[in-house]
């Protein structure tokens, strides 16, 4: 064997070894285990739950402006500006705050406050009856991005704490503000869905009035007007009690981010409850509020615990509370556990809705793999046998090339951590089809050249040369389309594109380089003019 050939052979063996490593890694345990560790199977093959959620990021804008309304009011109070009305008047534009009724003498002061650094996220404009603040488009975009990212972090945290192994939470490319959650091995998504979706917006509000039987009764009790700083919230103060309505102060005393820790626990009667701790800053605030309204004070009051816009508990304030307390919301133990988990991981900044849920049970996934592999092996064996019968010696080339092709393809997937899905298998089939086709193209061309009277060596040379043009054209065309599918596609379309692209690169190497080398090696050991087994 010539020096050149030996070098090429070494290269091929090297490639084989590297990609075998890609498939099995450093083998420990059985071969099957090793492969399982390296080749990621999609949820459609191994079973699990695939969720696509949408985060309603626009809500974050509304709650930010709500907070800023409060800040403006506070700032005005400090500056001695009275009589001004600060609020959001247009439901369709949650990003706009209107300030009206500022006394003419104080207008300059009000303006300089609003144009200060604290409100730099707003465009300030003068309108007929006052000043309007509109959140800048850039600030809205930032806020929305932040909301999406916080949601992803929170969901990831929750899923991790639930103990789902290898869960994936990532932005989803199909539409804006969508999140993809993949939970391998979870085939009953009900509880996970609840935990993910629950915004876990927990807050404690001062009770102004109630309980009322329904909204109408509440309105009637307040002469048909809900005060601007109040809101009506439904719920029940004890579990199983019929739903009632309370009039609560709109601004909460403490809320989501104020909670430092929460643990499920039980009260003295053995009922599940949640013990919580507040941050120091919130603790101070809460102390101020509870001492002002405790049963021994001049203005005793009660507070409502609101979870996801539903009243869960209403309690009279017994004594001043600083930074720890408990919530008895008529929870089951499971609910208490889940809710503490959600409080620990923080509230979602906006509500979430599900767009897509796909669950594949483990048995179906396993059946798909098994049948898919049987079918692929049966198909490949049939192809290999045919190549041997039809092309004799050259058939060995083709079979070797095909085998190596598969090793490289799987190795690629192992190295890059790509996921093999059902559509991915489609890509593998197209790869096998085109791999076989490359060999057939070359062999048929060599036969043609032989028929036209060329020697074996010349026929091989010409055959490869002519077939190469075609093979490059077909492969580049398909790689172009695979790249585009990868760029513009998601999910299944991408899975297809990935295996196809890897497979085609492998093909170019095996059909053109490896197969050629084998021919050259055979020709070198033959006398000039000897027949070729093809």
């Amino acid at each position, binding site marked *: 064997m010539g020096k050149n050939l030996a070098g090429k052979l070494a290269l091929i063996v090297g490639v084989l070894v590297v990609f075998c490593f890609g498939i099995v890694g450093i083998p420990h345990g059985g071969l099957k285990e090793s492969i399982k560790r390296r080749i990621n199977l999609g949820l459609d093959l191994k079973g699990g739950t695939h969720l696509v959620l949408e985060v309603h990021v626009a809500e974050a804008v509304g709650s930010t402006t709500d907070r800023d309304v409060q800040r403006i009011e506070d700032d005005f109070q400090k500056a001695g500006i009275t009589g001004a009305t600060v609020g959001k008047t247009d439901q369709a534009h949650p990003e706009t705050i209107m300030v009206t009724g500022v006394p003419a003498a104080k207008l300059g002061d009000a303006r300089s406050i609003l144009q200060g650094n604290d409100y730099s996220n707003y465009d300030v404009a003068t309108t007929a009856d006052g000043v309007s603040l509109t959140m800048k488009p850039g600030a809205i975009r930032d806020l929305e991005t932040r909301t999406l990212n916080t949601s992803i972090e929170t969901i990831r945290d929750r899923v991790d704490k639930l103990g789902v192994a290898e869960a994936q939470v990532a932005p989803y490319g199909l539409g804006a503000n969508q999140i993809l959650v993949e939970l391998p091995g979870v085939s009953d998504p009900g509880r996970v869905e609840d935990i993910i979706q629950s915004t876990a917006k927990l807050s404690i509000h001062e009770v102004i009035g109630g309980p009322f039987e329904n909204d109408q009764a509440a309105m009637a009790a307040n002469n048909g007007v809900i005060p601007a700083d109040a809101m009506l919230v439904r719920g029940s103060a004890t579990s199983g009690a019929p739903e009632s309505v309370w009039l609560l102060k709109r601004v909460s005393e403490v809320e989501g981010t104020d909670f430092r820790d929460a643990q499920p626990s039980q009260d003295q009667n053995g009922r599940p409850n949640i013990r919580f701790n507040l941050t120091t800053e919130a603790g101070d605030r809460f102390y101020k509020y509870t001492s002002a309204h405790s049963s021994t004070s001049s203005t005793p009051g009660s507070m409502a615990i609101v979870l996801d816009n539903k009243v869960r508990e209403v309690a009279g304030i017994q004594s001043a509370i600083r930074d720890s307390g408990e919530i008895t919301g008529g929870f089951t133990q499971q609910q208490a556990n889940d809710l503490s988990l959600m409080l620990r991981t923080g509230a979602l900044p906006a509500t979430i809705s599900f767009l897509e849920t796909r669950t594949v049970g483990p048995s179906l996934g396993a059946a798909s793999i098994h049948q898919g592999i049987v079918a*692929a092996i049966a198909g490949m064996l049939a192809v290999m046998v*045919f190549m041997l019968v039809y092309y004799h010696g050259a058939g060995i080339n083709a079979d070797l090339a095909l085998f190596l092709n598969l090793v490289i393809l799987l190795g690629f997937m192992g190295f890059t951590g790509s996921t093999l899905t*059902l559509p991915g298998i489609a890509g593998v*089939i*197209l790869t096998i089809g085109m791999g076989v*086709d490359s060999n057939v193209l070359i062999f*048929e061309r060599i036969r043609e050249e032989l028929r036209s009277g060329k020697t074996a060596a010349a026929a091989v040379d010409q055959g490869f040369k002519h077939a190469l043009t075609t093979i490059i054209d077909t492969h580049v*065309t398909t790689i172009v*389309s695979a790249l585009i599918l990868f760029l513009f596609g*998601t999910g299944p379309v991408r899975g297809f594109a990935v295996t196809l692209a890897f497979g085609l690169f492998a093909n170019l190497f095996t059909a053109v380089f490896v197969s050629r080398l084998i021919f050259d090696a055979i020709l070198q050991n033959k006398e000039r003019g000897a027949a070729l087994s093809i």
Partner: protein
Amino acid sequence: MSLELFRTTNIDWLGKKWYFLGFSLIFSVLGVLSMLFWHGIPRGVDFKGGTQIRVAFDQAPNEDHLRQAMDKAGVKDFTIQRVSDPSGHAANKVIISLPQSTATDQSHDQGRQGVENALTSNYHDSAFTIEQVEIVGPTAGLELQKQAAWATVYSLIGMLVYLWFRFELIYGVAAVVAVFHDTLITVGAFSLTNQEITLTVIAAILTLIGYSMNDTIVVFDRIRENLATSRRESLHDVVNRSINQTLSRTVISSGLTFLTVLSLYLFGGEVLHGFSFALVVGILIGTYSSIAVAAPMLVAYQDWRVKRGKIASLPAGKRAKA
């Protein structure tokens, strides 16, 4: 002595172009008619939205009892479909589908819970497991549909541009028309047989597009090569000769790929049924279209140019850099 299927064939392929046209027209029109007036394009839950639940029973399920169980629990507008293997052998599985109204973005999980409760409390014939649940809201369904379509269109444009660069524009156009023809007939076959087009079927259609394109390029490459060496032969003859020269590879390659796909259809299990059906149809049509649609289009284009008094020769494209 080596085995050979076709040694030297001398078939006048282009002479049969009217038969080809007739054949293609019949199948395209049948498919289109079925899409318009009969089954429509049967979209799977992926695209039309809704809830689809695959349930496996320990014993052959009794469909009447299933219906009663659902009715009793107040589940509405459901359809029950028995799952069968490609061999036609009925499996102990059913697919229960609920319309899109059960999977709104607000109350996503309602349908699944309804069905699960109905079966648990009202169906007593045998135990069951829920194997697969797919819930697709209206927004997601629409987006998936749009996105799959655009990805395909972009990839076709990409291929067209590459072929334009390597050959001539008309080659690219002919290849894309052939691929479109294959997709139309395959989707038509789904409509005629009333099988649902799911995301996996889309992957199969992408595969057949790739395959058909591959096949077409092999023939085109040979035409280009022959045009470069024999300038005095008419295009009609060159195209015929090129098809004949590549015929043996066409038959062997397609035959082998068909074999792989057929094995997938027969042994691949029910989940791959629609997928492998698309490929079985697609490989056959894709091979046919390279010979019967793409190549005749080149000749027809040249004839049209001659009629308009333009230069008669079809440019062979940039010479291949081998």
